[in-house]
């Protein structure tokens, strides 16, 4: 079904733009290259549009379009060659076919690997310019590549760049102007001749000979056999090796510290301690420093004590209110509760106001405002659209999510993820995946929606299904983790252990079951490891900024919608009705206070929002555990749900979504029956 839709799109492209694209008038520049070579950095520079840059193969999984001067530029997923072995290759192939000029970005450290694509582009008859990127790393390793000679051998312009340092980008204009069709082997034309006459485009003719069934079908010509492809590939591989041996010289191989770290992270004896150290550092940074200290300050002090207090007392100037002030005395644990009522507004009785002011300014005072006016309550009350949303979003989630994204960005930039994928490969085999799936799953801890898209880099449909299921059922995204971290770190070690064990076991059970019953076979691991290096801080900050911004933009909308919904239910009294209806489940089965039902209502909108709804409930540690397990396993947020439907189809998406309800309450309840 999905293939069919994609197919139709291809035809549309072809009809409008025609394969070689020149007809549309605006030149199309396509950035093409192997995975993880710096294409997206080129794209950021050319188009001024931000796209993610990370140090693992497969960061970009779809096409992004931008504008550079009077042309269109396209960022593409990295590919090792033009063909249609998987979805990324298919999208890359089509945009390359439509291009006028290809800017081929090459990782100079891996010339042998990368030039394969370059030669294929040349054989396709594309106008290209080659950029030897990673020049800085090349110099560090004292490797010399003769760019001039390479240019002679290929017959196309060759430039040297270091994209992270923005060095060599000034050559881009020249490269675009001088892009050329390179030198093709004579034998190629004999091979292509017949097909070329029938399809009219050399690029497509070559792909057909190389066995691309989709292209062959488009032109309804017979497609080349696997054997023909192999012969062409081996011949091309030999040409590459020959070229590399003439242009490249390595003076000395100097040991680089991070290289060594890369090796140690793969060694079973040192790899596990390295992983543990990483996790510990992560725990102290997120779980302790940010979610305790930072958030305590932002949420409690800035949010509650200043923002909400001033906002609400300002509102109280204009409307009746009942304000309770709880004074906590350090020495005397008995609480002092005082209630101030203002029939008109805050200023009707200066004496009471002064008393209230005095009491509420106490260090440990907890001030609760109640507004009888339903409209005011809707906006500024306990679940007030304005008061609650802003506190949660800005003072609670923002610092946590930013910290999380930052930690993720550092990890993504270090080159550690593909090594972790390799380390865990055998374990992942047991649940029907290969190590590669570690990448989307880890990204899921950042944002499940984004990670669901990244499952495209997996090799087969069944792997994509298993990984998507894991992401949508059990992986809490950063926003949710944030709330979980705050609640759990207050609850103690045992709840943490129970929580982790239950979630982890659920993951194992769900994925092994899927592995057992899904038809087909999973693919074995085959991944190239990028260099290991110190993360680039500027890139990490930039990425954190854009992701956090994106998160806030999207989450704000849903938070307001959610708050409005809950607020309306609250003022109309429906919330209590709901809570009573759900009471058998919440109170008897999950053993939570009936108000916890609100969290689930909110959770349908977004899980993090739901989890945030557990804050005001004063739950016991074990109740927190149960509530968090239930909300973690609960339905994914609306954005993740929509993306899942898009990626995996309506049927699969709905099955996962509805079964999440069942799993959440089933497992949450069973745990509740045992531990509470």
């Amino acid at each position: 079904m999905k293939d069919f839709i994609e197919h139709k799109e291809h035809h549309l492209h072809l009809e409008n733009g025609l394969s070689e694209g020149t007809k549309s008038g605006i030149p199309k520049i396509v950035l093409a290259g192997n995975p993880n070579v710096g294409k997206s950095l080129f794209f950021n520079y050319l188009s001024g549009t931000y796209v993610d840059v990370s140090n693992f193969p497969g960061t970009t999984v779809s096409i992004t379009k931008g504008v550079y001067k009077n042309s269109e530029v396209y960022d593409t997923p990295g590919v090792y060659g033009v063909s249609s072995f998987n979805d990324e290759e298919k999208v890359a192939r089509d945009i390359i076919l439509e291009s006028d000029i290809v800017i081929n970005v090459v990782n100079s450290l891996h010339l042998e690997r990368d030039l394969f694509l370059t030669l294929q582009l040349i054989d396709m008859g594309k106008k290209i310019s080659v950029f030897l990127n990673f020049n800085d790393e090349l110099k560090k390793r004292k490797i010399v590549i003769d760019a001039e000679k390479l240019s002679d051998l290929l017959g196309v312009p060759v430039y040297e760049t270091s994209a992270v340092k923005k060095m060599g980008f000034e050559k881009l204009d020249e490269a675009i102007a001088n892009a050329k069709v390179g030198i093709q082997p004579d034998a190629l034309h004999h091979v292509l001749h017949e097909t070329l006459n029938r399809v009219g485009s050399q690029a497509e003719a070559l792909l057909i000979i190389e066995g691309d069934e989709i292209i062959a079908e488009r032109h309804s010509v017979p497609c080349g056999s696997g054997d023909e492809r192999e012969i062409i590939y081996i011949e091309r591989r030999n040409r590459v090796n020959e070229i590399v041996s003439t242009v490249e010289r390595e003076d000395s191989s100097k040991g680089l510290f991070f290289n060594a770290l890369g090796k140690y992270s793969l060694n079973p004896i040192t790899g596990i301690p390295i992983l543990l150290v990483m996790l510990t550092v992560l725990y102290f940074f997120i779980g302790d420093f940010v979610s305790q200290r930072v958030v305590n300050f932002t949420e409690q002090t800035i949010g509650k004590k200043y923002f909400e207090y001033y906002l609400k007392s300002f509102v109280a100037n204009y409307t009746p209110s009942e304000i309770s002030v709880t004074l906590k005395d350090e020495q005397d644990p008995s609480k002092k509760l005082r209630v101030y009522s203002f029939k008109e507004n805050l200023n009707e009785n200066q004496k009471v106001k002064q008393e209230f002011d005095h009491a509420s300014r106490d260090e440990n005072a907890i001030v609760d405002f109640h507004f009888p006016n339903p409209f005011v309550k809707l906006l500024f009350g306990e679940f007030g659209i304005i008061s609650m949303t802003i506190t949660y979003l800005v003072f609670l989630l923002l610092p946590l999510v930013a910290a999380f994204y930052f930690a993720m960005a550092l990890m993504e930039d270090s080159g550690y993820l593909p090594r972790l994928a390799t380390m865990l490969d055998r374990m992942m085999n047991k649940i029907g995946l290969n190590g590669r799936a570690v990448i989307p799953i880890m990204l899921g801890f950042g944002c499940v929606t984004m990670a669901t898209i990244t499952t495209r880099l997996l090799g087969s449909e069944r792997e994509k299904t298993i990984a998507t299921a894991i992401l949508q059922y059990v992986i809490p995204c950063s926003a949710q983790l944030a709330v979980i971290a705050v609640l759990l770190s207050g609850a103690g070690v045992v709840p943490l252990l129970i929580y982790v064990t239950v979630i982890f076991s659920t993951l194992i059970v769900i994925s092994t079951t899927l592995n057992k019953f899904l038809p087909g076979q999973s693919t074995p691991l085959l991944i190239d490891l990028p260099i290991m290096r110190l993360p680039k801080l500027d890139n990490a900050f930039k990425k954190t900024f854009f992701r956090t911004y994106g998160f806030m933009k999207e989450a704000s909308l849903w938070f307001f919608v959610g708050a409005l919904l809950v607020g309306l239910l609250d003022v109309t009294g429906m919330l209590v009705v709901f809570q009573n209806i759900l009471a058998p489940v919440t109170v008897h089965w999950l053993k939570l206070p009936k108000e916890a039902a609100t969290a689930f209502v909110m959770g349908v909108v977004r899980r993090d929002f739901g989890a945030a709804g557990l804050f005001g409930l004063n739950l016991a540690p074990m109740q927190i555990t149960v509530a968090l397990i239930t909300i973690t396993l609960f339905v994914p947020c609306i954005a993740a749900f929509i993306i899942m439907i898009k990626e995996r189809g309506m049927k699969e998406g709905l099955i996962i979504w509805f079964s999440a309800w069942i799993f959440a309450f089933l497992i949450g309840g069973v745990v509740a029956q045992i531990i509470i």
Partner: protein
Amino acid sequence: MPGAKKERTANIIMGNKTLDKIKKGTYFTIEKLPSGIVKVQLIRLGLSEGDTIFCLERLPGGTIIVQKNRQEIAIGFELAKLISVRIKII
């Protein structure tokens, strides 16, 4: 590693084996790749029949990390089993 020398002599005698059995730290030559898409994928990455490759690491369970020039590639057990190799005698 003790016994490494003995091991190597044994390898020379045994000659052919599959990649999953290769010891860490040995050079080997690729004899035969499995046919089909996997083969062309490997060729594109730079691993073709006749190439001499270094085994950088062998993880418990059989995931193999090989190195060719500067490129490190991780290969899962299931795939490694299908690649025939010959130990290089230096």
